[in-house]
């Protein structure tokens, strides 16, 4: 059974009077357990909309989304999900340790287990020496790292990451990449959205390409590269978008 699934998931935003923008257009996506799945697309393609719909912070205009067979509003299901938002902001008045403690308590994790887990995670993301520093003084990179630690506090089965390498330097990117592969090998399902194609190319097993809310193509990276005769992901990306734009022009009507 697919661990993450969307069925004709649609989101139409109303802006002002009688003006609408299609955020997501009948998205049908299936992600299997254990995959490292990347959703790609230019800005405004619907990547974040898709993630927000899956996480329940936005409500769909039509269609359905399921995580582990449950709706996005299911509290039980959220026990097994970890989320890292784009441009993470956290409570400035807390220290890194307090933040992890706060989130950890919301997961019903045993206090002793939680304390150990926090030490482990802080070490993993390289922030064990900044325990007493409040988040107000963190750099962007540090915030990303504490955010990653926070998303792993509950040892989630599913990890959803929105632009996880934004603002990271190359070393930070490499570390994140390695961590993601490590987590995937440990059996976790990872769904990430990104427009850093080089990063996605190196880690994802399957991808989906979105453009203007429409799913252009989805599948295993090497199979798609073959199909579109692309040398790399960037090439694939451009080719699929060009193909779509051509189709629109010839058919004269957008979905």
């Amino acid at each position, binding site marked *: 059974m697919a661990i993450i699934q969307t069925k004709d998931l649609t989101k139409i935003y109303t802006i002002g009077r009688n003006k609408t923008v299609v955020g997501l257009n009948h998205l049908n996506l299936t992600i299997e357990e254990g995959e490292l799945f990347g959703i790609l697309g230019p800005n405004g393609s619907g990547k974040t909309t898709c993630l*927000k719909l899956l*996480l*329940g*912070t*936005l*409500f769909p205009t039509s269609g359905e989304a399921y995580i582990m067979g449950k709706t996005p509003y299911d*509290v*039980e299901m*959220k*026990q097994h*999900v970890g*989320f890292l*938002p784009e*441009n*993470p*902001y*956290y*409570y*400035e*008045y*807390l220290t890194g340790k307090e933040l992890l403690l*706060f*989130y950890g*308590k*919301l*997961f*019903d994790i045993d206090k002793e287990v939680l304390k150990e887990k926090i030490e482990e995670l802080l070490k993993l993301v390289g922030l064990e020496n900044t325990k007493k520093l409040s988040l107000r003084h963190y750099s962007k990179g540090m915030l990303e790292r504490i*955010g990653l630690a*926070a998303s792993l506090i509950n040892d989630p089965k599913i990890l*959803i990451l929105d632009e996880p390498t934004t603002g990271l330097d190359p070393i930070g990117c490499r570390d994140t990449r390695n961590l993601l592969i490590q987590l995937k090998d440990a059996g976790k399902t990872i769904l990430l959205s990104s427009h850093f194609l080089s990063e996605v190319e190196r880690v994802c097993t399957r991808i989906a390409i979105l453009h203007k809310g429409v799913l252009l193509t989805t599948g295993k990276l090497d199979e798609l590269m073959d199909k579109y005769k692309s040398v790399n992901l960037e090439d694939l990306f451009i080719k699929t978008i060009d193909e779509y734009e051509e189709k629109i022009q010839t058919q004269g009507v957008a979905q």
Partner: protein
Amino acid sequence: MKKTWILAWNTVRESFRKKTTYIIILFALIMIAASEFFAFLSAQEQTKMIMDTSFAVIEFFGFLLAMFGSITAVSSEIEKRTIYTLLTKPITRTNFILGKYLGMFFILLINFVIMTIFFLLLIHFKKIPINIAIFKTLFLIFMELLVIASISLALATFTSDAFNIIASCFLYIIGHLTSYGRQVIEMTKNIVIKGLADMMYTILPNYQNFSIRDKVVVGIPVPWQYVLIVTGYGIMYIVIALLIGIYFFRTREI
């Protein structure tokens, strides 16, 4: 329920790590102490002025704390986007609202107790007798603050900060005048206006119910029955406000 407490505790912690809370309290304590300046009056007059000023200061600064506290509790999470991470945790949106309100309850309680202790020390120092009527007054002021907090919190779930501040201040003023409005309306002969006015009278928070200090300070006794009924009113209003807040928050897209 446990998660509501965790969220509440986080709200309290946020409030006490912010400078604004301390500034408001400091101002309140200074103003209570300022009633010392009535020393040139006779003892009886001084007592009245100290009591009047202190009650009014506690209520007014309490109002500021309740309003700004509730507004920031919700809007700072949304503006700072910490709400995204929070809502993806295994909590319901109802947990969030109740947690914030419970947090506000404790914030108000702690600040209220500080102001009350200071006030009681002052009147004890001035050899003014401390009687049960004073505690009844303080209790009802606290209930009023809880109602104010619930309304500001509910408004914060679907309005902007600016609108919320204006609306909360407006309701604060109107809420103290509702019984006057009722007296004026009673003189009207028009049934439609009367009906509408009656409806408004019920819907708007009647803060005047909680205001017994003008009576207590001049020695009019307030029976426990009155205090109890008004407390019931306060609790019912808080429930309504929180339900409205929960409704709007659950339908809100973030």
